[in-house]
């Protein structure tokens, strides 16, 4: 009997397939579909600190006269109250329709009182919290050390406030990624998800203006998390989930072989719908059966940095032989 059970978010999951935070997970109807199609866990759409800041700014622009100074002075708290009330409702609605664990996702760009709301998310019934931390490192006055301090402070603040498991979803924008992950792993985290995928700017050359790039990942993007899962999974003291560019059962298996405990996926479900989850689960099961594996732990990490036959592949950054080979084959 093949078991797909694994552990992430401090929880035993029935399989390693996690529905990543996205607009798909902001709707109880979709959440029910993901649960019915066998999701291992579902991460709700993030509640964004920046969203509250932006909304405050929009309101402030409409109330510029001195008459509204007192009204606006603490209005961000009012916005926050409403955003969190509706997020609490989403958690309750999701819990009522899903057998899979429901993970709240809190985005923050600063520490301070915003993070206190982790406890409200806990009170609303979330099974775990995914902290979605990211500050675009584009301030020339901020150092890598500043970045690291922010990440660690935010994680500590949340971990200290709640009893439910906390994981963090990070980006790859670190000059010392392995070191930062190692430091985060030392903060009683129940997992690290790598990596977050961000909205990107693009350029419309006809209109000559900046536009939003198409939002979906493509399946070649999975190679970035694959490398880092392979490098870090045997060296961190906490579970890892792979995310970005994972579309197929084959890619899920690769991540597990590299050492991931779980994978997070979203783009594929925008394109193929929640029912496609069953296809991926079956692909994973068939492969395990074909290979004779009874559990995920039987093969997880077999090709990680410490177990792979040629671990130098993970640290190699140049294409010396590959390009040479391609060039040669083209000449033939």
């Amino acid at each position, binding site marked *: 009997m093949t078991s797909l059970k694994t552990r992430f978010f401090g929880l035993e999951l029935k399989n390693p397939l996690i529905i990543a935070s996205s607009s798909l997970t902001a709707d109880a109807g979709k959440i029910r579909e993901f649960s019915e199609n066998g999701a291992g866990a579902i991460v709700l759409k993030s509640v964004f600190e920046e969203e509250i800041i932006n909304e405050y700014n929009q309101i402030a622009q409409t109330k510029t006269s001195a008459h509204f100074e007192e*009204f606006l002075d603490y209005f961000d708290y009012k916005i926050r109250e409403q955003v969190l009330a509706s997020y609490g409702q989403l958690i309750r609605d999701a819990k009522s329709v899903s057998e899979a664990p429901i993970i709240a996702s809190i985005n923050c760009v600063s520490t301070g009182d915003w993070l206190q709301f982790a406890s409200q998310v806990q009170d609303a019934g979330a099974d775990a919290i995914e902290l979605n931390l990211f500050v675009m490192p584009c301030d020339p006055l901020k150092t890598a050390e500043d970045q690291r301090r922010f990440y660690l402070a935010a994680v500590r603040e949340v971990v200290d406030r709640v009893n439910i498991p906390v994981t963090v979803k990070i980006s790859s924008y670190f000059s010392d990624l392995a070191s930062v992950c190692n430091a985060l792993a030392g903060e009683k985290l129940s997992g690290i998800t790598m990596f977050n995928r961000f909205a990107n700017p693009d350029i419309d050359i006809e209109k000559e203006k900046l536009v939003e790039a198409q939002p979906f990942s493509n399946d070649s993007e999975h190679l970035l998390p694959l490398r880092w899962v392979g490098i870090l999974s045997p060296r961190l003291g906490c579970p890892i989930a792979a995310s970005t560019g994972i579309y197929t059962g084959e890619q899920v298996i690769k991540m597990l072989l590299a050492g991931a405990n779980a994978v997070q996926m979203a783009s594929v479900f925008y394109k193929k719908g929640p029912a496609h989850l069953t296809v991926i689960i079956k692909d994973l099961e068939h492969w395990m059966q074909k290979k004779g594996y009874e559990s995920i732990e039987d093969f997880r990490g077999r090709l990680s940095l410490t177990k792979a036959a040629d671990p130098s592949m993970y640290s190699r950054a140049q294409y010396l032989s590959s390009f040479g080979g391609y060039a040669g084959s083209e000449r033939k």
Partner: protein
Amino acid sequence: MTDHTEMLKQERNTPWRVELRNSVPGKDRIAIERVKMNEVEPLERIKSQTCEVNCGLTPEQALHEARRCMDCVNPTCIEGCPVSINIPKFVKQIEAGKFLDAAATLKEFSALPAVCGRVCPQEKQCELKCFYSEKMNKEPVAIGYLERFAADYERLSGKIQIPKVEERNGIKVAAIGSGPSSLSFAGDMIKLGYEVTVFEALHEIGGVLKYGIPEFRLPNSVVDVELENLKEMGVNFEKNFVVGRTASFDDLKELGYKAFFIGSGAGLPNFMNIPGENLNGVMSSNEYLTRVNLMYANQSDSDTPIMLGKRVAVVGGGNTAMDAVRTSKRLGAERSLIVYRRSREEMPARLEEVKHAEEEGIEFMNLANPVEYMPNAEGRVAKARFQRMKLGEPDASGRRKPVAIEGDIFDIDVDLVIVAIGVSPNPLIPACLPGLKISRWGTIEVNEETMQSSIPEIFAGGDIVRGGATVILAMGDGRKAAASMHRYLQEKQKK
């Protein structure tokens, strides 16, 4: 040129104005120093909740100050007034010694001149647009002090003039709530000949003027005189009447009411939703001020006495926060503290209120924000934990944003915390009108030009529309709503 501008020009050219203007050369007017408001000494005034801090101007001081006004060709001060009071006219009437005429001019535009003269932020309105502020970089004419002077003079003279009202037209209209927007609405509608009833849920008329603003800033006796004027004009007041509960809108329609103005204000306090906010000893400024101002809960024989804190922290930097912290001092606090997350420069409270608070020994702990309250063994608040802040970049309101200084947290002993961070609309009225369009913040959505809601016979104004603004802006809404309701009812009658 508009009718209004033409009217102002004609009035400016009346012989008495021309003569008065020419009687003192402009350079002499400019040379006059702005008058200082007479005040009760801080140590004396903090002994009583009802001792008004500002004493008003003497007639000599008022004449002196009125002389500073240049009676400008283009009176920009009027642009700064949300109810468009003919400021140069009443100021020149004071200069001419016609104090009762000045009061009558004020009443043409405002149902509550003695109130506005006390609580309006003139420094951000008419006085900001004064010729002295705009062109001379000098202190503006003290328009607010003069407004108060004229209204007080009339009241104290015993010769209170009741504005003329049109003959009753038999059409019944209602105002819901009895705060500044409703009173202003009622004043204009009664002048136009309507049968006006103001419905108030509490046992006192006046709304925020009574329950919100303490008597040391706005004595109840001053408000009562203005209310009495409205009664004299024919406005009917119903207390202890909760529209939506005591009677529904349909009940009132059956009683013959043809249109409604909703001015039920913003009586729902906002909180920060931080740990410990539900402890005993942590309350909203609404509760604290209402219980003291309206229910006298600070008095020893009160049936529902209020907690009298010795170490009081008031969170917020607006006028309500100042009212609460200064009240706590008057009720015997040894330490009364304002905790504000920005710096003094960004405080929305009037400068005068901040100055008065400082004189009275209020401490200001700026650039700090509460993050948690901790109880003693009895479950009452004993400590407040604060996050030290710094100022970041300006936000969309133009004020610099408070940013937490990571790890800089400290505790202070407190036994009473008053949260004064704003209010939200009272949800009762919108909840009992299913077709009424409301925003996600619970405010009633209206046409800004007419103050008419999505239900044609319902108009609204003040904080139930704006979420929270000044008394004078609410009054402006009431006036605007009255004018458009009048048009609406006239049109309806024609059909």
